[in-house]
């Protein structure tokens, strides 16, 4: 039996991806025709027809991209569910370690960023009376569509190649740290990692108040990079309350109250709004300070959440792990 029947959730996920992709394909074709003939200055019948069609395109794109965001969470959730009956896996980490798994996840994440940018650009364009951003908006969509095509193909390649009989690695194997091999960059140990994390956070707060967008973005990217390792190798042990359990995915499961979704979402939203503050800095109508504020809020939520678990453990048990 083919592995596509592996789980009902995966089947439904792929079906929904196909549906959304079809809708996006329709928008893609219409976008091309709109871009080809668009000229706001003219008031011909053709132009009005194109304007009407642009409402359809915007409707479909808004709907589809919104569903895409929901589907991303559903994807993570289904992969997590898969781990129950793929031999050897205890959480999603084992499944993602398979072929095309990590790149599929990474591509989905970057696509989410582009989708977010598109939504901000769309709301900007609708506020204007001169269709200034319509062309850019549609061009960006075409770019996103190409990326989503890759994502769609990768989905099938990844999900259809999950082995039913071969054992996959469990997260304790994938994320182990021993004295010989440590996956933490720059050869850092946990304590220095955490120190750097908090220093970066303070730096980010300062830069945010100073409104230095490019520097802020650079340090935000660095922060996300360091945070990934910090959460996986240090903070996660406090969430699972086990010094040897280091895994970024297990915290997405119900036994930990799905806290993983909040932690990772807060981290990425912090980075996303920082990116927005750079991409849209030239725009006058939008209150750019809103982006700075949101970026700071989400980054703070992230730091608060991860610190909370460490403190909670200390308060309850009197010692650190």
């Amino acid at each position, binding site marked *: 039996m083919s592995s596509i029947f592996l789980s009902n959730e995966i089947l439904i996920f792929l079906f929904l991806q196909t549906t959304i992709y079809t809708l996006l394909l329709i928008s893609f074709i219409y976008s091309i025709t709109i871009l080809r003939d668009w000229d706001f200055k003219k008031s011909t*019948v053709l132009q009005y027809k194109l304007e009407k069609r642009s409402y359809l395109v915007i409707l479909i794109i808004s709907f589809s991209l919104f569903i895409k965001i929901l589907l991303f969470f559903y994807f993570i959730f289904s992969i997590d569910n898969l781990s129950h009956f793929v031999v050897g896996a205890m959480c999603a980490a084992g499944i993602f370690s398979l072929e095309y798994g990590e790149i599929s996840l990474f591509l989905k994440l970057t696509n989410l960023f582009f989708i977010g940018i598109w939504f901000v650009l769309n709301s900007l364009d609708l506020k204007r009376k001169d269709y200034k951003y319509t062309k850019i908006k549609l061009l960006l969509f075409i770019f996103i569509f190409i990326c989503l095509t890759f994502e769609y193909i990768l989905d099938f390649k990844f999900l259809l190649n999950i082995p039913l009989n071969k054992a996959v690695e469990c997260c304790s194997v994938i994320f182990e740290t021993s004295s010989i091999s440590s996956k933490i960059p720059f050869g850092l140990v946990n304590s220095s990692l955490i120190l750097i994390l908090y220093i970066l956070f303070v730096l980010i707060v300062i830069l945010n108040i100073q409104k230095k967008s490019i520097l802020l973005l650079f340090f935000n990217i660095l922060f996300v990079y360091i945070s990934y390792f910090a959460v996986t190798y240090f903070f996660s042990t406090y969430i699972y309350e086990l010094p040897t359990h280091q895994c970024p995915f297990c915290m997405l499961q119900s036994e930990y109250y799905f806290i993983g979704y909040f932690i990772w979402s807060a981290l990425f939203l912090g980075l996303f709004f920082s990116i927005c503050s750079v991409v849209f800095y030239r725009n006058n109508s939008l209150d750019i300070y809103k982006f700075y504020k949101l970026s700071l809020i989400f980054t703070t939520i992230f730091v608060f959440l991860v610190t909370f678990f460490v403190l909670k453990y200390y308060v309850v048990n009197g010692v650190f792990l």
Partner: protein
Amino acid sequence: MIVAKNISKIYFEGSKKEFYALKNINFEIKKGSFVIFKGVSGSGKSTLLSILSTISKPSFGEILFDKEPVSKYPDIHASSFRAKNIGYIFQSFNLFEDLTVFVNVSLPLIPLGFSQKDIDKKVEEILTLSNILHKKDEIVSNLSGGEKQRCAIARALINNSNTILCDEPTSSLDYENSMNFIKTLKELKESGKTIVVATHDPLFFELDFVDKVFELKNGVLVE
């Protein structure tokens, strides 16, 4: 002030049936004036009025409301402008027959973002002014011609707009109701609103408070 520059409207452009509903219309309407567009059926009055109200877009030319090129706005902004600044009274009233008077009159306020409390207050005020408050929960289809007219007027005035456009407003009314309507228009003009009426009802041509009469013949303005 409302300015129309070189307004033309072509239907079925590029095909054999192509014809000009409006051709090179130019005019100015000063604020607070009462203007009549006179002409027989099919002369293009309704088309002109719909373009003026931004419901339709012209094939050529533009409409300027206080220097704002509203005819070129994207739909969202044109609709927003219309909702805030224009009250329209239709030939056949165009009310929602199966909804109540209250709901009909409150509809224009919803896109403007008012709370339900504000909406209720404003609707009560305008219904009282239009003398139809006693019928506020009545379904429109049960109203008489005169009552429907008062409901339509209330709806056109609910957003406190400065411009009222009327398309053949008295064509389905008897003499008494027509005179009542004209009296209402006079009161509105005296309160400073700009009124534009498209009609071929001779009752309008003898009025003393009319500032300007335009005549439309086959889509062209005749002086």
